[in-house]
C-alpha cells in the first residue's frame, strides 16, 4: 500500500504542477501529497467511513497555496484512480470515493472562500490603516500648519487672485489693529496707505509675474485702525493649482516701522545740523549736485553764502553755550527771510550758512535775498535778556547751470570738505559765492556783493603775480627802459626816466602799474628798487660827456649840453625804509655817477599823505646833491607852499594838464593859463618843471611858450633800451622829430 500511495502522490504532484503559486519545493510538494494521499487511502478502507477527511485534505491543499482553480479539478481526477491503486473497486469503495470527491470539492471551495475572505479582509484592513495613517498624518500636518500659521510672529494672509483676503493670522490682526472679521473678506488695498496704494499693488503683481517662483518683495505702508501708519516688509507669493493657474496669493509681512523710523532718523541726522536743525552741508551738496544733474539750456541757479560776524566774539566774551544760542537765534532769523519753499537754507558749519536758490528768474531775486538777509541783521538779536549785534556778509552768485565760462582758478580737485563729490561746475558755484562773500566782508560788515568773474580774474592774476615777483627778480625778468627828458628851450637831451618793466613769461611785458603796488605789499619793492637804481646809475654813468668809461664827448653833438640826468622812481614804501639812503649812496659810489646826475621821483602822496613824511631821508639825499622831483604833480592835494619846506628841486606836471593843450583851441585857453601859472609859481619857488605825456608838436610848442623847462612823452620818444638814449650810441630819430617841431 505504501508503494501505491507513493506512486499516487507522484502522479498527483505532476497533475498539480503549474496550477498554483506555491512556495514549497518539488520534494516538499511530494511529501505533502504522499501524506494527504495516505489519509485519503485510509479513509476509503477504514470503518466507519469519515467523509470529513476530504474536507481536511482540501484545507491542507489550500493552506499550501494550491489555490488555482485547476488544482481542485485535477485533484478530483487524480483521486478517482485511488480505488484501483488500492485494488478495491467494490461498490462500497466506489461509493466512498464519490463522497470523498464531493467532500474534497466542497472543502476546497470552503477553504478557498475562507482564504479569499481573510485576504480581502486583511487587505481592507490594510487599506483602512493606510488611509487612516495618511489622514492622521494629514490632520497632524494640518494641525502643525495651523499652529505655525496661528502662532507665527510674522503676519500671514491668504487671499484670492482678485485681492480679496480669505484668511489671516493673529500677527496680521495685531499688525493692522482690526479684528479678524473686519479684515477677512475685505480687499488688500483697503488697508494700504493711500499714498502707497495702487503703486504698491501694481509693483507687487509686476514682480510676481516676472519671478519664476511667482514671488514679490515689497515694502509698503499700511493704515492701522487707530490711524497710525505701519511700515511692513512683505513677501508675496502666488500659489498655483495643478494646472498652473494662480489660485491664491499668500502674503507674509513683518512690521518694520521701527527700522524705518530709525532709518529716517539716521537719514535726517546725516542731513541736518544738530544745533540749528537746518539742513547741513551734505544735504546742500546733494541738492546742488541734483541741480547739476542733466540740466537744460535755460536752467539757472543762484547761491547766497552768508557769513555771520560777531558770533565768535560772543563765544570769547561769554561762553560757548551763549554763542550757540545766538547762533540758533540767527538761524531762525535767516529761516524767516526765505519766502520760496524751493530755496534751501543750510548751515555749512561755524558761522557760515548758504541759501541755494534753484531756478531764479535772474540775479535780482537772489540779490533780494541777500538784501533781506543783511537787513534782517540790522536789528540786534535778543537772547537771554542780552542784545547781540550780529552782522551778515553775503556773497551772491547767479548764473546759468550750464555755465559756459571756464571756472577761474580751476583745475583743483572738486572734492569739497566732507568728501562729497560735486560736479566741477557746482564746486565752482560754491567758490564764486565764497569769493563774493569775501568781497562783501572786505567792503563793509553787513553788506553783500555779487560775484564778478572779471574782477575775480584780475584778482587771481594779481595774486599770482605777487607770488611770482620774488622769483622773477632772481630770474632777471625785470628790464629797465629809458624815456628821454628833453630841454624844451633848445631840444637838447636833459636826461631820461628809468622805467622798470616785467618781461613776464606768460603775460608778456607788464607796466609798473601792474606790479609796483604788489611789490610794495609784499616787500619785494626794496630789492626791486635797488636793482633799478643800480642799473640806471650804471647806465647813466656811461652817458656823461666825461663819462666813467673815459670816452670823450666826440659825436655827442649839439643835442647834449652838460651832464645827462637819470630819473628813478622811488615808491612811498621805499622812502620810509631806513635802508633807502644807504642804498642810494652805495649805488652812486659803485657806479661813479655824480649825485647831481641822479634824480629821484617821489609821488605827491608820499610827501603829503597820511603816513610819516620822510623829510629826513630827503634832506640827506638832497644834501648829497641828489635831485628830488615830485611826480604826477597836480593830481593830489599838495600845495606849493608846503613843498617849500621840503628839499624838492623839480615838479613833474601830470599828463592831465598837458592834455588840456589841444591843437586848434585858442592859444590863450584856461588850461594854458593854469599851466602857465603853475610854471610861473614853481619858478618863483625855485623849482623846475617837466611836462609829462607830451604827444603833439602843438603841446610841445605851447609848453615851451609858457616857460616849461622840460618835456617827456611820445612826441619826443617812447621808452626804449638804454642804447637809444645814450648820446654816444643813439640814433637821432627822436631828436630829429623834435627839431622838426621847432622849425
Amino acid at each position, binding site marked *: 500500500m505504501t508503494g501505491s500511495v507513493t506512486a499516487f502522490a507522484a502522479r498527483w504532484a505532476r497533475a498539480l504542477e503549474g496550477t*498554483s503559486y506555491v512556495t514549497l519545493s518539488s520534494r516538499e510538494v511530494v511529501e505533502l501529497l504522499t501524506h494527504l494521499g495516505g489519509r485519503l487511502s485510509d479513509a476509503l478502507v477504514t470503518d466507519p467511513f469519515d467523509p470529513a477527511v476530504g474536507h481536511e485534505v482540501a484545507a491542507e491543499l489550500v493552506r499550501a497555496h494550491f489555490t488555482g482553480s485547476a488544482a481542485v479539478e485535477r485533484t478530483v481526477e487524480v483521486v478517482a484512480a485511488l480505488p484501483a491503486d488500492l485494488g478495491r473497486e467494490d461498490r462500497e469503495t466506489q461509493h466512498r470515493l464519490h463522497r470523498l470527491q464531493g467532500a474534497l470539492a466542497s472543502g476546497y471551495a470552503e477553504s478557498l472562500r475562507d482564504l479569499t475572505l481573510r*485576504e480581502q479582509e486583511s487587505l481592507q484592513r*490594510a487599506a483602512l490603516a493606510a488611509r487612516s495613517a*495618511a489622514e492622521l498624518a*494629514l490632520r497632524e500636518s494640518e494641525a502643525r500648519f495651523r499652529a505655525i500659521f496661528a502662532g507665527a510672529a510674522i503676519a500671514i494672509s491668504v487671499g484670492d487672485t482678485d485681492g480679496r483676503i480669505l484668511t489671516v493670522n493673529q500677527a496680521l490682526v495685531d499688525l493692522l489693529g482690526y479684528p479678524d472679521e473686519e479684515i477677512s473678506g475685505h480687499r488688500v488695498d483697503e488697508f494700504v496707505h493711500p499714498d502707497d496704494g495702487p503703486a504698491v499693488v501694481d509693483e507687487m503683481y509686476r514682480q510676481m509675474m516676472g519671478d519664476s517662483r511667482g514671488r514679490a518683495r515689497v515694502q509698503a505702508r499700511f493704515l492701522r485702525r487707530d490711524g497710525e501708519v505701519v511700515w511692513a516688509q512683505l513677501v508675496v507669493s502666488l500659489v498655483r493649482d495643478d494646472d498652473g493657474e494662480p489660485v491664491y496669493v499668500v502674503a507674509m509681512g513683518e512690521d518694520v516701522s521701527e527700522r524705518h523710523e530709525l532709518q529716517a532718523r539716521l537719514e535726517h541726522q546725516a542731513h541736518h545740523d544738530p544745533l540749528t536743525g537746518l539742513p547741513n552741508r551734505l544735504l546742500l551738496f546733494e541738492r546742488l549736485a541734483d541741480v547739476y544733474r542733466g540740466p537744460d539750456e535755460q536752467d539757472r541757479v543762484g547761491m547766497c553764502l552768508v557769513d555771520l560776524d560777531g558770533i565768535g566774539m560772543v563765544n570769547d566774551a561769554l561762553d560757548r553755550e551763549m554763542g550757540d544760542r545766538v547762533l540758533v537765534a540767527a538761524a531762525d532769523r535767516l529761516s524767516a527771510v526765505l519766502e520760496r519753499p524751493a530755496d534751501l537754507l543750510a548751515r555749512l558749519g561755524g558761522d557760515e550758512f548758504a541759501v541755494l536758490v534753484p531756478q531764479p528768474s535772474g540775479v535780482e531775486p537772489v540779490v533780494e535775498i541777500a538784501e533781506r538777509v543783511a537787513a534782517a541783521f540790522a536789528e540786534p538779536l535778543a537772547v537771554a535778556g542780552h542784545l547781540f549785534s550780529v552782522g551778515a556778509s553775503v556773497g551772491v552768485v547767479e548764473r546759468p547751470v550750464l555755465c559756459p565760462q571756464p571756472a577761474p582758478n580751476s583745475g583743483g580737485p572738486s572734492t569739497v570738505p566732507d568728501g562729497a563729490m560735486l560736479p566741477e561746475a557746482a564746486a565752482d558755484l560754491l567758490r564764486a559765492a565764497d569769493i563774493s562773500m569775501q568781497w562783501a566782508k572786505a567792503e563793509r560788515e553787513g553788506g553783500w556783493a555779487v560775484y564778478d568773474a572779471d574782477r575775480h580774474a584780475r584778482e587771481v592774476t594779481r595774486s599770482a603775480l605777487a607770488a611770482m615777483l620774488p622769483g622773477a627778480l632772481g630770474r632777471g625778468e625785470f628790464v629797465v627802459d629809458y624815456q628821454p627828458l628833453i630841454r624844451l628851450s633848445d631840444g637838447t637831451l636833459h636826461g631820461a626816466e628809468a622805467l622798470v618793466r616785467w618781461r613776464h613769461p606768460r603775460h608778456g611785458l607788464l607796466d609798473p602799474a601792474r606790479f609796483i603796488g604788489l611789490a610794495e605789499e609784499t616787500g619785494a619793492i626794496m630789492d626791486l628798487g635797488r636793482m633799478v637804481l643800480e642799473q640806471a646809475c650804471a647806465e647813466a654813468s656811461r652817458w656823461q660827456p666825461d663819462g666813467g668809461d673815459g670816452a670823450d664827448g666826440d659825436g655827442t653833438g649839439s643835442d647834449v649840453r652838460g651832464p645827462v640826468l637819470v630819473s628813478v622812481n622811488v615808491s612811498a614804501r621805499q622812502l620810509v625804509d631806513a635802508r633807502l639812503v644807504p642804498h642810494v649812496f652805495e649805488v652812486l659810489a659803485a657806479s661813479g655817477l655824480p649825485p647831481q646826475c641822479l634824480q629821484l621821483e617821489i609821488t605827491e602822496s608820499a610827501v603829503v599823505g597820511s603816513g610819516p613824511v620822510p623829510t629826513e631821508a630827503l634832506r640827506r639825499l638832497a644834501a648829497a646833491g641828489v635831485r628830488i622831483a615830485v611826480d604826477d604833480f597836480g593830481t593830489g592835494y599838495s600845495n606849493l607852499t608846503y613843498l617849500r619846506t621840503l628839499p624838492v628841486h623839480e615838479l613833474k606836471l601830470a599828463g592831465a594838464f598837458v592834455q588840456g593843450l589841444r591843437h586848434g583851441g585858442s592859444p590863450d585857453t584856461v588850461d594854458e593859463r593854469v599851466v602857465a601859472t603853475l610854471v610861473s609859481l614853481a619858478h618863483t619857488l625855485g623849482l623846475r618843471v617837466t611836462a609829462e605825456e607830451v604827444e603833439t608838436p602843438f603841446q610841445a610848442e605851447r609848453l615851451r611858450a609858457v616857460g616849461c623847462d622840460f618835456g617827456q612823452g611820445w612826441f619826443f620818444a617812447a621808452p626804449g633800451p638804454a642804447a637809444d638814449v645814450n648820446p654816444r650810441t643813439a640814433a637821432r630819430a627822436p631828436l630829429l622829430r623834435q627839431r622838426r617841431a621847432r622849425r
Partner: protein
Amino acid sequence: MQRPTWVPADVDLDRPSVARIYDYYLGGAHNFAVDRAVGEQAIRIVPELPDVLRANRAFLRRAVRFMMARGIRQFLDLGSGIPTVGNVHEVAHAVDPRATVVYVDHDAVAVAHSRSLLDSTATAAAVQADLTDPDLVLKHTEVEDLLDFDRPVGILLVAVLHFVPDAQDPGEVIRSYRRRMAPGSMLALSHGIHQDDDASRRMHALYSRSTCPLTARSKAQVEDLLDGFDVVEPGVVDVALWRNDEEAQHATRSLAVAAVGRRP
C-alpha cells in the same frame, strides 16, 4: 521630487497598484477590481506573466537562501509589495530566526498590510519610502534599528527596477546603495526585459495608468546596472534558471532576467 515629510502621501484606492496586481498574478486575493482588471489585460498581452512572476518569487527565495549560505543575516527588500507566502523573513527565519529584514515599499496599503503581518515579529519591519531616494530610505528608524551597514547586507531589487524610469537614473540609485554597502554585501536583482515592440508598447500604456509606469530594459542594460559588483555564477540569466536545482525549470522566454552581485 522631494516632498516635505509632514505632507502625507495620498492613498488612492481607485488607481491600480503594482503591488496588488502582482498579488493577483500570484493567485492571491489581496487585490481590488481595478487591480484585477489591469492584471487580466496584461495577461492577455503577455500570457506568461503569472509564470514569470512566480519565477520571480522563486528567484527571491533562492537568492535569500544563497545569501544566507554566504553568511548574510540582514536583508533590505526594496519594492517588497503585498506580503504573500514565501516572504523574505519566512525564508530567512527557516534558516536562522535571528536574521533581520526590512521591507520597503512606497505603496501605503502594501506597507500597512506588511505591518499587520509583521506585528509580532521583532526581527522584521516594513517602512513606506521611495526606494529611489536611498538617503531617505536608510534614514528610517526601522532601517537604522534592524540593519547594520558596517556588516554585509543583502539588498533585494526583485521585479521592481523596471518601475524606475530612466529619468530617475536607476544606475545612480544602485550606485548610491552600493556606496553604503559593506564589502561582502550582496545585491539580488531581477528585471523585465524588452519583448516584441508591440507588446512592450501595450504593456507600457497599460501600466502608465497604474501608480508605476513600466520601463523594460535590455539584458545589456541590466548588466550595466550591476556595474561595480562581482556578479556571481551563472551571471545575468533567465529568472527561472538562476541557480535553480530544485524546481521544475520553466524558462520564461527570457521575459525577465536575474542576477546576484557581490560588493567587493
